[in-house]
Structure formats: C-alpha cells, structure tokens
C-alpha cells in the first residue's frame, strides 16, 4: 500500500498545473481518489461534511442492483433453455446468462465512462461517479438480446444529450438510463417494443421469440404466467426488471441506508395500485381487467419504482412533492398501459414524463409554502 502511495505521489507533479500531462489532470484525480481517500479539507468558512459522499451513495445503489443483476443473468439462461425445451443445470443457465449480460455491462461502462472522462477533461472538472449507477442500470432495463452496438449507441446518446449538455452529474432533467432505453425504444422498436423479447435463442430456433407478460395482457387481458413466477422473476422481460424479490432486496438496502426515498417508492406503488383498481371496478377490458396486484409485478413497474423514480437528481426535492411525483408516476404508468395499446410498457414513459414535471412540482410547493407563511404573518399582524 505504501509503495503505491509513494508511486502516486511521485508521478503526481506530472499531472498538476504546468506538468507534462496536465491535460490529464481530472483522469489522474479520478484514479487517485479511487485508490486513496482524499485528504483535502475545505478552506475558509464553516462546512459541515457528511461522511457519505457521492461515491458512497452511488456504490450503495450499485450494490442494491446486484441481486437484480444476478437474478437477471440466471433468468436469461433459464428462458433460453426453456425456449429450446432442454433441461439444464443451474450452473449452465447462470453461465449462459452471465456470458450474455456481461458484454452489455462492459459496453455500457466503457462507452459511458469514456465520454464522462473525456468531458471532464475538456471542462477541467473532476470526474463524477454518477455514471457508475447509470452504467449498471442501462443493461438491466434492456432485453438480453439487444445488439451490443445498440447498447453503446444508446449509452452515448443518453450520456451526451441527456446528461453532459445539461452540465453533467446532478444537472440532468431526465434519468439518463431511461433516456438510453427510450432512445432504443423509439429508434429500434423491433428490438425493444416490449411485446416480445428474444432469448438469444435465434441460432438454435430460428426466429423464436416469446411474448412478455405485458403483451399477453395487452392482447388477452391475462398475463399468461403464474403469479408467483412473476414474483420470482422467471418470466421473459428486460434483464433486471423481472424478479420482484431481487428488486425488493435492493429496495431494502437503499431504504435502510437512506439512499432512496421511501416516500417516492411507496407512493408509486399506491398510485399504480389505486389506478389499476379503479380500472378493475370500472369494468375496463383488456389490460384494464388485469388484477391490480398483477399490474405491480409485471413489466418494469417494480424496477422503475425502486431504482428509477427514486433517483434524487430527477425527482422533486420537497418532501411533499415526492408524494405527488410518485403517485403520478404510478398512475400514469397504469394509464399508459391500459389506454394506449401501442405502448404496453408505460413505466418508462411515465417516469420520463414526471421527471419533466419534477421542477414544476417543487416550484408550486415552495410557492405555496411561502404564501402560507406570508398569510400567517398577516394574520398575526392583525
């Protein structure tokens, strides 16, 4: 350890102002703070600093995603062998999924981090850790058989046009991972439509694809899958979104560490359940006749509620706003699912829509608070 510290210190002058590689300053800084805790302290004025910095927060999100990732890998293999009609060992299934998912993960990280480093270099900023979570989320919300170049293209599109143009980590209006998915959803609908997901089985069974629970529900009003299978996650769908249990483990971790807001999360589920229930008792047909509890476990509802809606950057800051924001996400997701047959998966569009309105919600709530206090002062003055 000491030798490493010595080495880092010895090459440091090269990367500082006036050094040979001073243009690589932020890259060096990123690796140095990755290896060692920075010992810089604030100068001037009084600052209260929490031990939990951006790095810790992001790492908790990444850890919370691990169960969903592992389950997604297993499920990819499970669906593959089920489609082929072959029996396979647990290890074979997992290995198949692992080899399918790992390249997507690598592409997403390499492309995204490459752009992040390059932009930080150009602007002379520090490299931010925000992409570590985004890079993990991107493959998890895509079907397992999306071509790798599409993953790379979508990642580049999202990082440049949804994040860096707005000023980088913490300044984006929309969730970059969802923008990546939305890009593919509209650009290459045949790969992403949500009606059917390929299991990567096209070599063995030519052109085989299976309907997801959502498209079954869209066509017939029933998911076509066992309810408990939906909970365990043994249904076709995007890699990380299928298993409710794996997502719940992540949710507990994020709630216990305080990284995600329980208010947002719970109100998404309440909004979704209530809207679906209203469709149920209103006698809607097709997707609307689906039991409210089934609506919550199929498609990306859980994943979106736990990992996407709670993104602190794109959700409202006011506590009361989080209830409104979450409730409307849940409600919009079900409304889009039921009323628009073109988009069986409403969660992505609902979250992006509410991301757009999050600043407005904040502004209204802050404004109301101000006027309420003004009124109180007036009352007292009387």
């Amino acid at each position, binding site marked *: 350890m000491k030798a490493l510290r010595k080495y880092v210190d010895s090459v440091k002058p090269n990367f500082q102002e006036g050094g040979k590689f001073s243009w690589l300053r932020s890259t060096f800084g990123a690796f140095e703070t990755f290896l060692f805790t920075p010992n810089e302290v604030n100068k001037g004025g009084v600052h209260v600093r929490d031990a939990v910095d951006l790095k810790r927060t992001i790492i908790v999100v990444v850890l919370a995603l691990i169960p969903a990732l592992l389950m997604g890998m297993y499920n990819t293999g499970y669906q593959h062998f089920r489609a082929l009609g072959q029996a396979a060992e647990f290890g074979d299934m997992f290995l198949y999924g692992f080899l399918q998912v790992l390249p997507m993960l690598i592409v997403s990280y390499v492309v995204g981090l490459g752009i992040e480093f390059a932009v930080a270099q150009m602007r002379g900023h520090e490299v931010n850790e925000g992409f570590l979570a985004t890079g993990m989320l991107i493959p998890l919300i895509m079907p397992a058989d999306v071509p790798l170049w*599409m993953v790379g293209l979508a990642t580049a599109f999202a990082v440049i046009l949804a994040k860096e143009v707005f000023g980088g980590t913490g300044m984006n209006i929309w969730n970059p991972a969802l923008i990546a998915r939305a890009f593919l959803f*509209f650009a290459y609908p045949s790969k992403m439509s949500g009606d059917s997901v390929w299991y990567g089985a096209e070599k063995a069974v030519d052109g085989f694809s299976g309907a997801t629970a959502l498209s079954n529900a869209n066509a017939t009003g029933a998911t076509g899958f066992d309810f408990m299978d939906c909970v365990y996650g043994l249904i076709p769908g995007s890699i990380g979104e299928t298993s409710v249990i794996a997502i719940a483990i992540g949710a507990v971790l994020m709630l216990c560490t305080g990284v995600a807001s329980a208010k947002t999360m719970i109100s998404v589920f309440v909004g979704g359940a209530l809207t679906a229930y209203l469709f149920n008792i209103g006698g809607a047909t097709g997707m609307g006749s689906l039991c409210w509890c089934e609506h919550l476990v199929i498609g990306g509802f859980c994943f979106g509620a736990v990992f996407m809606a709670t993104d602190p950057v794109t959700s409202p800051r006011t506590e009361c706003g989080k209830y409104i924001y979450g409730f409307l996400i849940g409600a919009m997701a079900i409304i889009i699912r039921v009323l628009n047959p073109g988009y069986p998966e409403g969660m992505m569009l609902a979250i992006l829509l509410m991301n757009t309105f999050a600043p407005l919600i904040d502004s209204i709530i802050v404004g109301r608070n101000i006027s309420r206090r003004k009124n109180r002062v007036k009352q007292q003055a009387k």
Partner: protein
Amino acid sequence: MSLSKKNKEAFLNPLTINNPVTVQVLGICSALAVTAQLEPALVMGLAVTVIVAVANVVISLLRNTVPNRIRIIVQLVVVATLVTLVSEVLKAFAYDVSVQLSVYVGLIITNCILMGRLEAFAMQNGPFESLLDGIGSGLGYAKILVIVAFFRELLGSGKLLGFNILNYDCIQNAGYQNNGLMLLAPMALIICGCIIWWERAHNKDLQEK
C-alpha cells in the same frame, strides 16, 4: 461584380453567424415538419428562398409609400400572393413533392423568417440590398433544412433523395438497422440543437456569457 461591405454582410451573415434557424431560432416548426426526407427539404428551402427574396424586393420598393399603420397587412398580401403562386407552381410541376409538403407550403406565410426580414430589413433598405438579404436568409434556412434532412433520411430510412444507400442485405446482415427515431420530429429538434452546439463551439461571437 464586387459588392460593398454592407451588401456582402447582408448576403453572407444569414448563412453563417446570423443564421435564421440556428441563431435567430426562427422557422423551427417547418424545419421539424419537412425534413424527414431530403427532397421535400430542398424544395421547401428553395421555395422559401424565392419567396423571401421577391417579397423583400417588393416591400422594399413599397416601403416609402405604405402608411406605417397598415404595413403588416401589405406585407401579408405580398407574401400570400407569392406563397399561392409557389404553391400552384409546385402543384403543376412537382406534384409529388407538393403532396409531401402538404400544408407546409401554405404555412410559409406564417414563417417567422419572412415577416422578420420584411420588418427588420426590407422596410429600411433599398431593393438590391433587400434582394441579397432575402436570398441570404432563404439559403441560410435551406442550409439547415438540408443538413437536418440529410442525417434524418440517411440514418432514418437509409436513403438519400430516394436513392437507396444503406438498405442492402450485406449491411443489414451485419446487424445494422435504420434508426426509427430519426423519422420522428424530436430528432429534428435534437439535430438542430447539435448544429447550434457545433456553431457556438466554433464561433466565439455566438457564445452567451
């Protein structure tokens, strides 16, 4: 023929540092609507160029005789006449394109670039300067339309001017797919944004402090 400095500016500025679409941000709606393919974009750019140039000259000739209070009406009459003429010519000689452009030819009358140039330039300057300014503004608009339409048609449907460029089996089998998002209006806006980004990055005068 050598032009005075002012005339040169009147002609060249709209093409570069005072582009009607990317700097003044006018005429965006038609830039989104007609740029899914290159051909209608070219025709639209040409139509707007002709109309702005002629309307500029006419208004410039009338500028001292039109009472100030009814100048907008007069401008509208001139523009409407020209738009109707262009629309009829398109229907007669390029019917397919005119069908593709549908209402957007008629909507040139509401194009902010037109009224902007008439109000801001033709009302104060002579006919020759106004002609140059009109051609420059029209071409500046056409330039952006063509750039946007080039990317949208090439990446969206794999063609250029209707000729097949990318829809060959050898390319498709390699895993390439046409990008459906390019055919939707939001992508035109994003491409416009990227052009603005590029222009501002390369031109210090355009950067806002």
